């Protein structure tokens, strides 16, 4: 049997590109199972804000069928940074030390856990009273 060849639709949008002005989260998405790892791409295409306006984007997964857990936290994006694209990775074969789920996940950090469902959540700090960030997040299994 030949090895399966990678296809276009393996890259999956977790949240489509849209302008966000408030804290929120995306909808639940199923991704391929039993993969080695997942790469997540955060593409910030517009940030019509000031340096004090802040965007934090997290990838969450469900490990118990019920609760969402943060497993990736992108670098905090300031409102005057301009367009940027960040890539991070969670890996099934790597260790993750025990943690209590209330413990915050630091910026640019991951927990190497791959659950059943996935979603994105984001936090917007609106210092200027006009913060707006346009972004999308994509997942790619490997």
């Amino acid at each position, binding site marked *: *049997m*030949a*090895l*399966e*060849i*990678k*296809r*276009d639709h*393996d*890259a999956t949008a977790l949240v489509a590109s849209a302008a966000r002005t408030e804290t929120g989260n995306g909808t639940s998405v199923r991704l391929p199972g*039993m*993969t*080695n*790892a997942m*790469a997540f*791409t955060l*593409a910030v295409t517009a940030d019509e804000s000031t340096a004090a306006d802040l965007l934090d984007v997290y990838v969450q997964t469900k490990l118990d069928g019920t609760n969402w857990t943060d497993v990736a936290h*992108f*670098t905090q994006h300031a409102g005057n940074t301009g367009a*940027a*694209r*960040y*890539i*991070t*990775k969670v*890996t*099934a*074969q*790597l260790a993750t030390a025990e943690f209590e789920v209330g413990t915050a996940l630091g910026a*640019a950090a*991951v927990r*190497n856990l791959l659950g059943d469902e996935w979603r994105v959540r984001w936090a917007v700090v609106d210092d200027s009273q006009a913060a707006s960030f346009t972004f999308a997040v*994509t997942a*790619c*299994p*490997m």
Partner: protein
Amino acid sequence: MALETKRDHDAIELMASAAHDTGEDWLADGTGDSHRLPYQVNAFCFTLDVTAAESILGDTLAVYIQTKLDGSNWTDVARFAAVTGNGGAVRRIIRHTAQIATAEFEVGTGLAAAAVRNLHGDEWRVRWHIERGCSVSAAFTFSVTAIPM
């Protein structure tokens, strides 16, 4: 069930052997065609085979492997050590592993020579960058092959 036996055609030519040169320009950049590689493998091994370097010491060749992680954008995920114009034929091998971590990065950050980002996307290609030193025209003949493992 017996383990599947590795076959010849698992090795895929990302870029066929050909000469690339700067002509009279100081720099030359190029990219190869997009390729699909097998999915859910442990790792890829990429081989850069430079068979001729009709250049001198100051001429350099940088070769990168790129992949698409979001369906749209090419990202550098492996970069071979620089090839110098007076080095003669060389064959460099670099490995790229799905199970190893890659720290978060912003894509504008350059990838250093002989470095990898352990990310496997949907499509793959080669890009190269040639710089001419004092020669009349820096020329390198090379190919790149990928093999899954």
